[in-house]
Protein backbone atom coordinates (compact mmCIF):
# COMPACT_ATOMS: atom_id res chain seq x y z
CA UNK A 1 0.00 0.00 0.00
CA UNK A 2 2.83 2.43 0.88
CA UNK A 3 4.44 1.66 -2.45
CA UNK A 4 1.15 2.24 -4.25
CA UNK A 5 0.73 5.66 -2.66
CA UNK A 6 4.33 6.71 -3.30
CA UNK A 7 4.21 5.64 -6.94
CA UNK A 8 0.80 7.32 -7.33
CA UNK A 9 2.13 10.59 -5.94
CA UNK A 10 4.97 10.45 -8.46
CA UNK A 11 2.53 9.72 -11.27
CA UNK A 12 0.38 12.56 -9.93
CA UNK A 13 3.35 14.88 -10.34
CA UNK A 14 3.44 13.93 -13.99
CA UNK A 15 -0.29 14.54 -14.40
CA UNK A 16 0.05 17.92 -12.68
CA UNK A 17 2.87 18.83 -15.03
CA UNK A 18 0.90 17.99 -18.17
CA UNK A 19 -2.16 19.79 -16.76
CA UNK A 20 -0.17 22.91 -15.93
CA UNK A 21 -0.56 24.62 -19.30
CA UNK A 22 -4.23 23.67 -19.64
CA UNK A 23 -5.04 24.82 -16.13
CA UNK A 24 -3.15 28.09 -16.70
CA UNK A 25 -5.03 28.91 -19.90
CA UNK A 26 -8.29 27.73 -18.35
CA UNK A 27 -8.13 29.69 -15.11
CA UNK A 28 -6.16 32.70 -16.22
CA UNK A 29 -7.19 33.28 -19.83
CA UNK A 30 -10.64 31.62 -19.62
CA UNK A 31 -9.85 29.55 -22.70
CA UNK A 32 -10.51 25.82 -22.77
CA UNK A 33 -7.64 24.75 -24.98
CA UNK A 34 -8.64 21.49 -26.66
CA UNK A 35 -5.40 21.56 -28.66
CA UNK A 36 -3.47 21.13 -25.39
CA UNK A 37 -2.75 17.45 -25.98
CA UNK A 38 -1.71 17.96 -29.58
CA UNK A 39 0.61 20.82 -28.64
CA UNK A 40 2.11 18.55 -26.00
CA UNK A 41 2.78 15.91 -28.66
CA UNK A 42 4.15 18.56 -31.02
CA UNK A 43 6.72 19.62 -28.45
CA UNK A 44 7.48 15.91 -27.86
CA UNK A 45 8.30 15.56 -31.55
CA UNK A 46 10.50 18.65 -31.41
CA UNK A 47 12.54 17.08 -28.62
CA UNK A 48 12.73 13.78 -30.50
CA UNK A 49 13.72 15.49 -33.76
CA UNK A 50 16.52 17.51 -32.10
CA UNK A 51 17.82 14.37 -30.41
CA UNK A 52 17.55 12.13 -33.46
CA UNK A 53 19.04 14.45 -36.09
CA UNK A 54 21.20 16.85 -34.08
CA UNK A 55 22.14 14.52 -31.22
CA UNK A 56 21.11 17.22 -28.76
CA UNK A 57 20.63 16.24 -25.15
CA UNK A 58 16.94 16.76 -24.26
CA UNK A 59 17.88 19.14 -21.46
CA UNK A 60 19.71 21.41 -23.90
CA UNK A 61 16.85 21.04 -26.37
CA UNK A 62 14.67 22.77 -23.77
CA UNK A 63 16.52 25.97 -24.58
CA UNK A 64 15.36 25.65 -28.18
CA UNK A 65 11.93 24.10 -27.76
CA UNK A 66 10.70 26.53 -25.09
CA UNK A 67 11.30 29.64 -27.27
CA UNK A 68 9.74 27.90 -30.30
CA UNK A 69 6.63 26.97 -28.31
CA UNK A 70 6.45 30.47 -26.80
CA UNK A 71 6.49 32.02 -30.26
CA UNK A 72 3.82 29.56 -31.33
CA UNK A 73 1.72 30.55 -28.30
CA UNK A 74 2.14 34.23 -29.10
CA UNK A 75 1.12 33.62 -32.73
CA UNK A 76 -1.87 31.47 -31.73
CA UNK A 77 -3.17 34.16 -29.42
CA UNK A 78 -2.48 37.03 -31.79
CA UNK A 79 -3.89 35.50 -34.96
CA UNK A 80 -6.42 32.93 -33.78
CA UNK A 81 -7.60 33.06 -30.19
CA UNK A 82 -7.75 36.86 -29.83
CA UNK A 83 -10.45 37.08 -32.43
CA UNK A 84 -12.27 33.90 -31.51
CA UNK A 85 -12.41 34.80 -27.80
CA UNK A 86 -14.40 37.91 -28.76
CA UNK A 87 -17.00 35.70 -30.44
CA UNK A 88 -18.26 34.18 -27.19
CA UNK A 89 -17.40 31.35 -24.83
CA UNK A 90 -17.98 28.55 -27.29
CA UNK A 91 -15.87 29.78 -30.18
CA UNK A 92 -12.40 29.26 -28.64
CA UNK A 93 -13.41 25.67 -27.85
CA UNK A 94 -14.30 25.03 -31.48
CA UNK A 95 -11.20 26.86 -32.69
CA UNK A 96 -8.83 24.86 -30.52
CA UNK A 97 -10.67 21.65 -31.40
CA UNK A 98 -10.02 22.36 -35.07
CA UNK A 99 -6.45 23.31 -34.30
CA UNK A 100 -5.93 19.97 -32.56
CA UNK A 101 -7.09 18.11 -35.67
CA UNK A 102 -4.79 20.17 -37.91
CA UNK A 103 -1.76 19.64 -35.67
CA UNK A 104 -2.40 15.90 -35.28
CA UNK A 105 -2.72 15.27 -38.99
CA UNK A 106 0.26 17.43 -39.92
CA UNK A 107 2.36 15.51 -37.40
CA UNK A 108 1.07 12.23 -38.79
CA UNK A 109 1.95 13.32 -42.31
CA UNK A 110 5.52 14.31 -41.40
CA UNK A 111 6.43 11.76 -38.79
CA UNK A 112 4.29 8.80 -39.80
CA UNK A 113 2.72 6.19 -37.58
CA UNK A 114 5.86 5.07 -35.73
CA UNK A 115 5.75 5.59 -32.00
CA UNK A 116 8.60 7.71 -30.66
CA UNK A 117 10.22 8.28 -27.30
CA UNK A 118 13.27 10.14 -26.15
CA UNK A 119 14.00 7.64 -23.39
CA UNK A 120 16.74 6.08 -25.61
CA UNK A 121 18.54 9.41 -25.74
CA UNK A 122 18.97 9.92 -22.02
CA UNK A 123 21.05 6.80 -21.36
CA UNK A 124 20.69 4.92 -18.11
CA UNK A 125 18.62 7.68 -16.52
CA UNK A 126 15.44 6.28 -18.02
CA UNK A 127 15.52 3.19 -15.79
CA UNK A 128 17.69 4.31 -12.87
CA UNK A 129 16.06 4.51 -9.49
CA UNK A 130 16.64 5.26 -5.84
CA UNK A 131 15.88 2.79 -3.10
CA UNK A 132 14.03 4.70 -0.43
CA UNK A 133 12.73 1.88 1.78
CA UNK A 134 13.49 -1.83 2.08
CA UNK A 135 11.58 -2.89 -0.96
CA UNK A 136 10.44 0.41 -2.44
CA UNK A 137 12.21 1.98 -5.39
CA UNK A 138 11.38 5.28 -7.07
CA UNK A 139 12.36 6.02 -10.64
CA UNK A 140 14.72 8.99 -10.99
CA UNK A 141 12.84 10.48 -13.92
CA UNK A 142 9.56 10.29 -11.98
CA UNK A 143 11.11 12.17 -9.08
CA UNK A 144 12.56 14.78 -11.40
CA UNK A 145 9.15 15.17 -13.06
CA UNK A 146 7.41 15.64 -9.70
CA UNK A 147 10.03 18.22 -8.70
CA UNK A 148 9.61 20.11 -11.98
CA UNK A 149 5.84 20.12 -11.52
CA UNK A 150 6.18 21.65 -8.04
CA UNK A 151 8.79 24.13 -9.26
CA UNK A 152 6.79 25.13 -12.32
CA UNK A 153 3.49 25.54 -10.47
CA UNK A 154 5.23 27.48 -7.72
CA UNK A 155 6.89 29.80 -10.23
CA UNK A 156 3.61 30.39 -12.05
CA UNK A 157 1.83 31.08 -8.77
CA UNK A 158 4.47 33.63 -7.77
CA UNK A 159 4.39 35.21 -11.20
CA UNK A 160 0.62 35.59 -11.11
CA UNK A 161 0.37 36.87 -7.53
CA UNK A 162 3.46 38.98 -7.05
CA UNK A 163 4.41 40.60 -10.33
CA UNK A 164 2.95 43.47 -12.33
CA UNK A 165 2.70 41.17 -15.36
CA UNK A 166 0.70 38.63 -13.34
CA UNK A 167 -1.69 41.34 -12.17
CA UNK A 168 -2.14 42.56 -15.72
CA UNK A 169 -2.78 39.03 -16.98
CA UNK A 170 -5.44 38.45 -14.32
CA UNK A 171 -7.08 41.80 -14.97
CA UNK A 172 -7.13 41.25 -18.72
CA UNK A 173 -8.61 37.77 -18.29
CA UNK A 174 -11.43 39.22 -16.23
CA UNK A 175 -12.28 42.21 -18.43
CA UNK A 176 -10.15 43.05 -21.48
CA UNK A 177 -12.09 46.24 -22.31
CA UNK A 178 -11.67 47.75 -18.87
CA UNK A 179 -8.03 46.66 -18.88
CA UNK A 180 -7.55 48.93 -21.89
CA UNK A 181 -9.24 51.87 -20.15
CA UNK A 182 -6.94 51.41 -17.18
CA UNK A 183 -3.88 51.59 -19.42
CA UNK A 184 -3.06 47.94 -19.99
CA UNK A 185 -2.19 46.76 -23.48
CA UNK A 186 -4.65 43.88 -23.29
CA UNK A 187 -3.65 42.35 -26.59
CA UNK A 188 0.02 42.23 -25.72
CA UNK A 189 -0.65 40.91 -22.22
CA UNK A 190 -2.83 38.07 -23.58
CA UNK A 191 -0.14 37.14 -26.09
CA UNK A 192 2.44 37.00 -23.30
CA UNK A 193 0.11 34.82 -21.22
CA UNK A 194 -0.34 32.43 -24.15
CA UNK A 195 3.43 32.32 -24.63
CA UNK A 196 3.85 31.41 -20.95
CA UNK A 197 1.20 28.68 -21.25
CA UNK A 198 2.99 27.16 -24.25
CA UNK A 199 6.34 27.35 -22.44
CA UNK A 200 4.86 25.11 -19.74
CA UNK A 201 3.57 22.80 -22.47
CA UNK A 202 7.13 22.53 -23.81
CA UNK A 203 8.35 21.42 -20.39
CA UNK A 204 5.54 18.90 -19.97
CA UNK A 205 6.19 17.66 -23.52
CA UNK A 206 9.68 16.72 -22.39
CA UNK A 207 8.25 14.86 -19.39
CA UNK A 208 5.79 13.01 -21.63
CA UNK A 209 8.40 11.91 -24.15
CA UNK A 210 10.91 10.86 -21.49
CA UNK A 211 8.34 8.87 -19.54
CA UNK A 212 6.93 6.85 -22.40
CA UNK A 213 6.15 6.62 -26.07
CA UNK A 214 3.95 8.84 -28.20
CA UNK A 215 2.67 9.09 -31.73
CA UNK A 216 0.83 11.80 -33.63
CA UNK A 217 -2.51 10.90 -32.07
CA UNK A 218 -1.36 10.56 -28.44
CA UNK A 219 -2.69 14.02 -27.60
CA UNK A 220 -6.24 12.85 -26.85
CA UNK A 221 -5.54 10.82 -23.70
CA UNK A 222 -3.08 13.47 -22.47
CA UNK A 223 -5.75 16.13 -22.89
CA UNK A 224 -8.28 13.96 -21.07
CA UNK A 225 -6.00 13.42 -18.06
CA UNK A 226 -5.00 17.09 -18.01
CA UNK A 227 -8.65 18.12 -18.13
CA UNK A 228 -9.61 15.74 -15.31
CA UNK A 229 -6.75 17.04 -13.20
CA UNK A 230 -7.82 20.65 -13.80
CA UNK A 231 -11.42 19.96 -12.80
CA UNK A 232 -10.55 17.80 -9.80
CA UNK A 233 -8.03 20.37 -8.58
CA UNK A 234 -10.54 23.18 -8.92
CA UNK A 235 -10.19 26.20 -11.11
CA UNK A 236 -8.25 29.29 -10.31
CA UNK A 237 -5.77 27.51 -8.12
CA UNK A 238 -2.49 26.31 -9.54
CA UNK A 239 -1.65 24.38 -6.38
CA UNK A 240 -5.02 22.67 -6.80
CA UNK A 241 -3.65 21.32 -10.06
CA UNK A 242 -0.90 19.47 -8.17
CA UNK A 243 -3.43 18.09 -5.73
CA UNK A 244 -5.73 17.15 -8.60
CA UNK A 245 -2.91 15.26 -10.32
CA UNK A 246 -2.15 13.29 -7.19
CA UNK A 247 -5.83 12.51 -6.49
CA UNK A 248 -6.31 11.29 -10.07
CA UNK A 249 -3.17 9.13 -9.92
CA UNK A 250 -4.12 7.60 -6.57
CA UNK A 251 -7.63 6.82 -7.86
CA UNK A 252 -6.18 5.18 -10.95
CA UNK A 253 -3.67 3.16 -8.95
CA UNK A 254 -6.31 1.96 -6.50
CA UNK A 255 -8.55 1.09 -9.45
CA UNK A 256 -5.74 -0.91 -11.01
CA UNK A 257 -5.05 -2.79 -7.78
CA UNK A 258 -8.70 -3.83 -7.57
CA UNK A 259 -8.97 -5.03 -11.15
CA UNK A 260 -6.38 -5.16 -13.97
CA UNK A 261 -8.62 -2.95 -16.11
CA UNK A 262 -9.57 -0.61 -13.28
CA UNK A 263 -6.82 1.95 -13.93
CA UNK A 264 -8.77 4.28 -16.20
CA UNK A 265 -12.13 3.50 -14.62
CA UNK A 266 -10.84 4.46 -11.18
CA UNK A 267 -9.64 7.82 -12.47
CA UNK A 268 -12.82 8.57 -14.39
CA UNK A 269 -14.98 7.54 -11.42
CA UNK A 270 -13.24 9.98 -9.07
CA UNK A 271 -13.45 12.70 -11.72
CA UNK A 272 -17.21 12.21 -12.04
CA UNK A 273 -17.76 11.94 -8.29
CA UNK A 274 -15.94 15.23 -7.71
CA UNK A 275 -17.70 16.88 -10.64
CA UNK A 276 -21.13 15.87 -9.33
CA UNK A 277 -20.33 16.88 -5.76
CA UNK A 278 -19.29 20.30 -7.05
CA UNK A 279 -22.47 20.51 -9.13
CA UNK A 280 -24.54 19.62 -6.09
CA UNK A 281 -22.83 22.22 -3.91
CA UNK A 282 -22.88 25.04 -6.47
CA UNK A 283 -25.66 27.64 -6.38
CA UNK A 284 -28.42 28.35 -8.82
CA UNK A 285 -30.03 26.57 -11.72
CA UNK A 286 -28.41 23.59 -13.37
CA UNK A 287 -26.97 25.60 -16.26
CA UNK A 288 -25.39 28.11 -13.89
CA UNK A 289 -23.99 25.34 -11.73
CA UNK A 290 -22.41 23.65 -14.72
CA UNK A 291 -20.94 26.97 -15.82
CA UNK A 292 -19.47 27.76 -12.44
CA UNK A 293 -18.04 24.25 -12.05
CA UNK A 294 -16.46 24.45 -15.49
CA UNK A 295 -15.30 27.97 -14.83
CA UNK A 296 -16.92 29.58 -17.85
CA UNK A 297 -19.24 31.85 -15.89
CA UNK A 298 -18.25 35.47 -15.92
Amino acid at each position, binding site marked *: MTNLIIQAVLLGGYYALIACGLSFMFSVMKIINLAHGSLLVLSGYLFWWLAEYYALSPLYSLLIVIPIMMMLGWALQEFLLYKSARGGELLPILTTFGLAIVIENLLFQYFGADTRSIAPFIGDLSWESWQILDNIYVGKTSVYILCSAVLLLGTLQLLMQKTALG*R*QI*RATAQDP*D*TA*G*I*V*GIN*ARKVSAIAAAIALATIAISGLAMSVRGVFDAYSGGPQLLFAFEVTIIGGLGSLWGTLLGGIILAIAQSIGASIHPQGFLIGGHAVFFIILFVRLYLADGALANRLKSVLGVSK
Partner: protein
Amino acid sequence: MSALTVKNLSVAHGQLSAVRNLSITVQKGEIIALIGANGAGKSTFLRALAGAHSPTAGHIYLDDKDITQLCAHLRVKEGLALVPEGRKLFSELTTQENLLLGGSSARAGQWNIEKIFKVFPNLVKRRHSKTGTMSGGEQQATAIGRALMSNPDILILDEVSLGLSPLVVDQVYASLATLIQMGTTIILVEQDLSRAMQVAQRAVCMLEGEIVLDKPMSLVSREEITDAYFGLHKITNSTME
Protein backbone atom coordinates in the same frame (compact mmCIF):
# COMPACT_ATOMS: atom_id res chain seq x y z
CA MET B 1 -4.81 76.25 -24.58
CA SER B 2 -7.49 73.66 -25.04
CA ALA B 3 -6.92 70.34 -23.35
CA LEU B 4 -9.43 68.38 -25.36
CA THR B 5 -11.13 69.13 -28.66
CA VAL B 6 -13.83 67.00 -30.19
CA LYS B 7 -14.87 67.69 -33.77
CA ASN B 8 -18.02 66.31 -35.39
CA LEU B 9 -17.88 63.07 -33.45
CA SER B 10 -20.43 60.35 -34.23
CA VAL B 11 -20.62 57.05 -32.40
CA ALA B 12 -23.02 54.20 -33.12
CA HIS B 13 -24.12 50.97 -31.46
CA GLY B 14 -24.78 48.95 -34.59
CA GLN B 15 -27.67 50.67 -36.36
CA LEU B 16 -28.38 53.01 -33.49
CA SER B 17 -26.40 56.25 -33.55
CA ALA B 18 -25.84 57.24 -29.93
CA VAL B 19 -23.69 60.33 -30.49
CA ARG B 20 -24.41 62.57 -33.48
CA ASN B 21 -21.99 65.06 -34.95
CA LEU B 22 -20.86 66.28 -31.54
CA SER B 23 -18.26 69.04 -31.15
CA ILE B 24 -16.87 70.46 -27.93
CA THR B 25 -13.73 72.16 -26.69
CA VAL B 26 -12.52 71.70 -23.13
CA GLN B 27 -10.01 74.17 -21.65
CA LYS B 28 -7.25 73.14 -19.28
CA GLY B 29 -8.38 73.05 -15.66
CA GLU B 30 -12.05 73.27 -16.52
CA ILE B 31 -14.67 71.36 -14.54
CA ILE B 32 -17.51 70.32 -16.82
CA ALA B 33 -20.76 68.72 -15.76
CA LEU B 34 -22.21 66.58 -18.51
CA ILE B 35 -25.95 66.39 -17.95
CA GLY B 36 -28.57 64.36 -19.73
CA ALA B 37 -31.23 61.71 -19.34
CA ASN B 38 -30.58 57.98 -19.67
CA GLY B 39 -29.91 57.16 -23.29
CA ALA B 40 -28.81 60.70 -24.18
CA GLY B 41 -25.45 59.29 -25.26
CA LYS B 42 -23.32 60.53 -22.36
CA SER B 43 -21.65 57.23 -21.52
CA THR B 44 -21.10 56.34 -25.16
CA PHE B 45 -19.51 59.74 -25.74
CA LEU B 46 -17.22 59.34 -22.74
CA ARG B 47 -16.32 55.77 -23.70
CA ALA B 48 -15.45 56.99 -27.18
CA LEU B 49 -13.20 59.63 -25.60
CA ALA B 50 -11.44 56.92 -23.60
CA GLY B 51 -11.09 54.67 -26.62
CA ALA B 52 -13.40 51.89 -25.46
CA HIS B 53 -15.73 52.54 -28.38
CA SER B 54 -14.56 53.50 -31.86
CA PRO B 55 -16.39 56.40 -33.49
CA THR B 56 -17.97 56.18 -36.95
CA ALA B 57 -16.93 59.72 -37.83
CA GLY B 58 -15.16 62.75 -36.39
CA HIS B 59 -11.94 63.50 -34.57
CA ILE B 60 -10.71 63.74 -31.00
CA TYR B 61 -7.69 65.90 -30.21
CA LEU B 62 -5.80 65.81 -26.95
CA ASP B 63 -3.51 68.84 -26.59
CA ASP B 64 -3.90 69.32 -30.37
CA LYS B 65 -2.75 65.76 -31.03
CA ASP B 66 -5.20 63.58 -32.98
CA ILE B 67 -5.97 60.55 -30.80
CA THR B 68 -9.02 59.31 -32.73
CA GLN B 69 -7.31 56.12 -33.90
CA LEU B 70 -5.33 55.53 -30.69
CA CYS B 71 -5.97 52.36 -28.62
CA ALA B 72 -7.48 52.86 -25.16
CA HIS B 73 -4.28 52.01 -23.29
CA LEU B 74 -2.27 54.56 -25.31
CA ARG B 75 -4.78 57.29 -24.51
CA VAL B 76 -4.16 56.65 -20.82
CA LYS B 77 -0.49 57.18 -21.55
CA GLU B 78 -1.39 60.49 -23.22
CA GLY B 79 -3.09 61.62 -20.01
CA LEU B 80 -6.75 60.73 -20.33
CA ALA B 81 -8.38 58.59 -17.66
CA LEU B 82 -11.96 57.35 -17.42
CA VAL B 83 -13.79 56.16 -14.33
CA PRO B 84 -16.37 54.03 -16.14
CA GLU B 85 -20.04 53.82 -15.28
CA GLY B 86 -20.64 50.95 -12.88
CA ARG B 87 -17.00 51.24 -11.72
CA LYS B 88 -15.84 48.15 -13.64
CA LEU B 89 -13.32 47.10 -11.02
CA PHE B 90 -11.42 43.85 -11.34
CA SER B 91 -13.52 42.15 -8.68
CA GLU B 92 -11.22 39.17 -8.17
CA LEU B 93 -8.28 41.44 -7.44
CA THR B 94 -7.62 43.37 -4.23
CA THR B 95 -7.91 47.12 -3.78
CA GLN B 96 -4.16 47.51 -3.84
CA GLU B 97 -3.88 45.41 -7.00
CA ASN B 98 -6.59 47.45 -8.72
CA LEU B 99 -4.79 50.65 -7.81
CA LEU B 100 -1.44 49.31 -8.97
CA LEU B 101 -3.02 48.35 -12.30
CA GLY B 102 -4.05 51.97 -12.69
CA GLY B 103 -0.36 52.81 -12.75
CA SER B 104 0.30 50.44 -15.67
CA SER B 105 0.88 53.30 -18.08
CA ALA B 106 3.75 54.54 -15.89
CA ARG B 107 3.09 58.25 -16.43
CA ALA B 108 5.12 60.53 -14.22
CA GLY B 109 3.19 62.55 -11.70
CA GLN B 110 2.38 63.12 -8.11
CA TRP B 111 -0.04 60.28 -7.55
CA ASN B 112 1.12 57.10 -5.94
CA ILE B 113 -0.60 54.40 -3.96
CA GLU B 114 0.14 55.96 -0.55
CA LYS B 115 -1.30 59.27 -1.67
CA ILE B 116 -4.47 57.56 -2.87
CA PHE B 117 -4.88 55.95 0.53
CA LYS B 118 -4.41 59.39 2.08
CA VAL B 119 -7.16 60.91 -0.07
CA PHE B 120 -9.47 57.92 0.44
CA PRO B 121 -8.80 56.90 4.05
CA ASN B 122 -11.80 54.53 3.93
CA LEU B 123 -9.75 52.25 1.65
CA VAL B 124 -6.87 51.69 4.04
CA LYS B 125 -8.51 48.85 5.94
CA ARG B 126 -9.63 47.34 2.63
CA ARG B 127 -6.17 47.34 1.11
CA HIS B 128 -5.99 43.57 0.75
CA SER B 129 -9.70 42.72 0.30
CA LYS B 130 -11.05 41.66 -3.04
CA THR B 131 -12.96 44.61 -4.47
CA GLY B 132 -15.93 42.39 -5.32
CA THR B 133 -16.72 42.10 -1.60
CA MET B 134 -16.62 45.83 -0.84
CA SER B 135 -19.36 48.44 -0.44
CA GLY B 136 -20.38 50.74 -3.28
CA GLY B 137 -18.60 53.74 -1.79
CA GLU B 138 -15.37 51.86 -1.31
CA GLN B 139 -15.62 50.54 -4.86
CA GLN B 140 -16.21 54.02 -6.28
CA ALA B 141 -13.25 55.35 -4.33
CA THR B 142 -11.10 52.52 -5.67
CA ALA B 143 -12.26 53.23 -9.22
CA ILE B 144 -11.40 56.92 -8.90
CA GLY B 145 -8.10 56.04 -7.24
CA ARG B 146 -7.31 53.60 -10.03
CA ALA B 147 -7.86 56.32 -12.63
CA LEU B 148 -5.77 58.81 -10.63
CA MET B 149 -2.88 56.35 -10.47
CA SER B 150 -2.26 57.06 -14.15
CA ASN B 151 -1.62 60.73 -13.26
CA PRO B 152 -4.15 62.02 -15.78
CA ASP B 153 -4.36 65.53 -17.19
CA ILE B 154 -8.03 64.94 -17.87
CA LEU B 155 -10.19 62.88 -15.55
CA ILE B 156 -13.55 61.68 -16.83
CA LEU B 157 -16.02 60.47 -14.23
CA ASP B 158 -19.10 58.66 -15.47
CA GLU B 159 -21.97 58.57 -12.95
CA VAL B 160 -19.89 59.44 -9.89
CA SER B 161 -22.61 59.01 -7.34
CA LEU B 162 -24.65 56.19 -8.86
CA GLY B 163 -25.73 53.73 -6.19
CA LEU B 164 -23.98 55.55 -3.37
CA SER B 165 -25.46 56.76 -0.10
CA PRO B 166 -25.54 60.58 0.35
CA LEU B 167 -22.86 60.37 3.02
CA VAL B 168 -20.49 58.54 0.70
CA VAL B 169 -21.24 60.96 -2.14
CA ASP B 170 -20.08 63.77 0.19
CA GLN B 171 -16.83 61.89 0.78
CA VAL B 172 -16.28 61.37 -2.93
CA TYR B 173 -16.86 65.06 -3.69
CA ALA B 174 -14.62 66.10 -0.84
CA SER B 175 -11.84 64.15 -2.49
CA LEU B 176 -12.70 65.64 -5.88
CA ALA B 177 -12.21 69.08 -4.33
CA THR B 178 -8.58 68.18 -3.70
CA LEU B 179 -8.22 67.27 -7.36
CA ILE B 180 -9.84 70.46 -8.55
CA GLN B 181 -7.40 72.50 -6.46
CA MET B 182 -4.55 70.75 -8.22
CA GLY B 183 -5.79 71.95 -11.60
CA THR B 184 -6.91 68.64 -13.08
CA THR B 185 -9.36 68.99 -15.94
CA ILE B 186 -12.53 67.10 -15.01
CA ILE B 187 -15.56 65.99 -17.00
CA LEU B 188 -18.20 64.45 -14.80
CA VAL B 189 -21.62 62.97 -15.25
CA GLU B 190 -23.88 63.66 -12.29
CA GLN B 191 -27.60 63.08 -11.96
CA ASP B 192 -27.88 65.25 -8.87
CA LEU B 193 -28.31 68.67 -10.49
CA SER B 194 -27.65 70.83 -7.41
CA ARG B 195 -24.40 69.03 -6.79
CA ALA B 196 -23.35 69.32 -10.41
CA MET B 197 -24.11 73.06 -10.36
CA GLN B 198 -22.07 73.43 -7.18
CA VAL B 199 -18.94 71.69 -8.43
CA ALA B 200 -18.74 72.45 -12.13
CA GLN B 201 -17.96 75.69 -13.92
CA ARG B 202 -19.68 74.76 -17.11
CA ALA B 203 -22.85 72.85 -17.89
CA VAL B 204 -23.12 70.72 -21.01
CA CYS B 205 -26.49 69.09 -21.65
CA MET B 206 -26.89 66.20 -24.02
CA LEU B 207 -30.12 65.05 -25.63
CA GLU B 208 -30.45 62.30 -28.21
CA GLY B 209 -26.74 62.29 -28.93
CA GLU B 210 -26.36 66.02 -29.41
CA ILE B 211 -25.31 68.93 -27.21
CA VAL B 212 -28.37 71.10 -26.65
CA LEU B 213 -26.97 73.43 -24.01
CA ASP B 214 -23.41 74.56 -23.30
CA LYS B 215 -23.03 77.51 -20.92
CA PRO B 216 -20.96 78.59 -17.94
CA MET B 217 -22.68 77.55 -14.68
CA SER B 218 -22.87 81.16 -13.55
CA LEU B 219 -25.00 82.12 -16.54
CA VAL B 220 -27.36 79.16 -16.56
CA SER B 221 -30.51 78.70 -14.54
CA ARG B 222 -31.85 75.52 -13.09
CA GLU B 223 -34.92 75.76 -15.33
CA GLU B 224 -32.81 76.08 -18.43
CA ILE B 225 -30.96 72.86 -17.60
CA THR B 226 -34.18 71.03 -16.75
CA ASP B 227 -35.70 72.11 -20.06
CA ALA B 228 -32.64 70.90 -21.95
CA TYR B 229 -32.67 67.64 -19.96
CA PHE B 230 -36.22 66.80 -20.97
CA GLY B 231 -35.98 68.39 -24.42
CA LEU B 232 -38.69 70.92 -23.53
CA HIS B 233 -36.97 73.73 -25.43
CA LYS B 234 -37.70 71.81 -28.62
CA ILE B 235 -41.41 71.84 -27.88
CA THR B 236 -41.45 75.55 -26.99
CA ASN B 237 -39.46 76.33 -30.15
CA SER B 238 -41.83 74.41 -32.37
CA THR B 239 -44.93 75.97 -30.82
CA MET B 240 -43.46 79.39 -31.34
CA GLU B 241 -42.84 78.77 -35.02
